[in-house]
């Protein structure tokens, strides 16, 4: 359709534009890693430069020491405990609930399903104040419980995701298993669960991201440094009033981003497919 030279020229332009945007996309992150390797006094001298004059891993050691006698080891451990519990709870509860809605006929199903759809549209932040008051009254503030327990009772978003996936599985498989003497739970566990594995992986990845990034919840519920997650610890670490050691700060920020980026590279296929097919927000 187009003359070849013109086509090549337009392709080159596209590549140049993509390259430029790619650089702008990644520059801030590379800058952060580079700054973590600079000496603290050098971070903001010729700040734009991406190559440290001398490679210095000292900031990783001094940063790891953390504050108030608590190392980043503790903050990492707390984050991992919360994130793993949340992901496990979400997968178990949401797959059971989604199966119930997708396959079992029961009274008032329409009503209960409507509550899922309404919760889906209601931003969780709206009810944060009364939720906090309730958790405060039952003595859960300053424990991990407010961050973990709700995940074990289903999340509207992932119920919907898994439900859509279960609906694509032919009913005949359930029927065949039933004839073979499988109970409802048997059908769920032996037939459905293995078949929805891709959807479970997608759900696990996104719940991992949200739980890893969760700042507001950790901020309001975790008031003691021993309980801090990475996000709350990093915020205090960067407190402008206390003369921040910026290269140590960037070192710990870099470490905190390694797990999400690693998960991204390992599961990229699931992530791209998950977003494309369900419109998940990353």
């Amino acid at each position, binding site marked *: 359709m187009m003359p070849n030279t013109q086509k090549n020229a337009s*392709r080159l332009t596209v590549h140049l534009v*993509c390259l430029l*945007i790619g650089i702008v*996309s990644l*520059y*801030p*992150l590379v*800058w*952060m890693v580079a700054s973590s390797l600079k000496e603290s006094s050098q971070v*903001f001298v010729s*700040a*734009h430069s991406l190559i440290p004059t001398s490679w210095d891993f000292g900031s990783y050691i001094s940063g790891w020491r953390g504050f108030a006698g608590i190392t980043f080891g503790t903050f990492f451990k707390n984050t991992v405990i919360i994130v793993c519990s949340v992901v496990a709870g979400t997968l178990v*509860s949401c797959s*059971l*609930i989604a199966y*119930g809605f997708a396959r079992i*006929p*029961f*009274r008032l199903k329409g009503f209960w399903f409507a*509550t899922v759809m309404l919760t889906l*549209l*209601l*931003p969780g*932040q*709206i009810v944060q*104040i*009364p*939720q*906090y*008051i*309730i958790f*405060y009254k039952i003595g859960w503030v300053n424990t991990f419980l407010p961050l973990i327990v*709700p995940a074990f*009772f*289903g999340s509207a978003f992932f119920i919907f995701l898994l439900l859509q996936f279960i609906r694509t599985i032919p009913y005949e498989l359930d029927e065949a298993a039933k004839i073979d003497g499988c109970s*409802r739970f048997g059908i769920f566990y032996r037939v459905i669960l293995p078949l929805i594995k891709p959807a479970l992986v997608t759900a696990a990845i996104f719940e991992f*991201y949200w739980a890893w*990034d969760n*700042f*507001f919840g950790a901020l*309001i519920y975790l008031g003691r440094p021993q309980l801090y997650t*990475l*996000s709350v610890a990093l*915020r205090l670490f960067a407190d402008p009033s206390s003369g921040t050691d910026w290269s140590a700060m*960037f070192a710990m*920020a*870099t470490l*905190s*981003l390694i797990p*999400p*980026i690693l998960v*991204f590279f390992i599961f*990229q296929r699931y992530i791209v497919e998950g*977003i*494309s*097919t369900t*419109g*998940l*927000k*990353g």
Partner: protein
Amino acid sequence: MTQKAVRAGYENGTGYLFILPWIIGFTAFTLIPFVALFYFAFTDYDLLSSPGWVGLDNFIRMFTVDEKFLTSLKVTFFYVLTAIPLRLIFALFIAMLLNMKIRFVGLYRTAFYIPSIIGGSVAVAVMWGQLFGLNGAVNGIIGLFTGTSPNTSWIANPDTALWTLILMAVWQFGSPMIIFLAGLKNIPDSYYEAAVVDGANGFHRFVKITLPLLTPVILFNLVMQIIGGFMTFTQGLIITSGGPLDRTLFYQLYVYRQGFEFLDMGYAAALSCFLLLIVAVLTALVFKSSSAWVHYESKG
């Protein structure tokens, strides 16, 4: 429906057993807090003494004496109305570039998407603040090109602080980009080929084919992003703490201050109620207007 008829009868026991976690969770973590929200909105409550009924006082305070409430409302609306359209337009533009069947698409997509996966974290917020600080890399780069680096911090300057955060939102264009890309892939090549035969140029093809066929995807993105935009919190707290001069006092940040810094839970609840109203009205408006601009292809 036929399934139901064939299976003759409900399995109430098993059904409720499977969805029991949802019933408990919905009641405990959504329904009760939701009802409580409306109760607390009409009280004066500091968490320590018992709540006292004050009628409409909290709402009257919002609209008569509380200037910060109006400021935060303005800031949030400005942010949502600029950041979300800019992010979506940019995402669509990039998605169209990547849809041109060029090489290295996977590589570009990865590079463009990485800011989105980590963008909500505190680590990135802290980094962004330093990037645009007085001695940050942005001023350094400007100095490199112009000879003198600006002597101002982008986040401390009341005129640029909010724009710095808007830029951060646009920088995270990755997830709408991937959704758009999937939408673009669903448009059959034959449509474009037919248009070329009819003599349509690139602009016409975009306006008459691409845009109409993408409108369902655009609608979905718009609703999700608007709701998300009103919930903006982390950036405002970490990068600018609502300043300078309250120019980045996001609504949720203001709710947090009232609730957790001033322990004025009743007022914070009233603010949340009003936010719910805003989000509900906006979502309804978008959906209502959609019949005029969203194009659904008839399945056939």
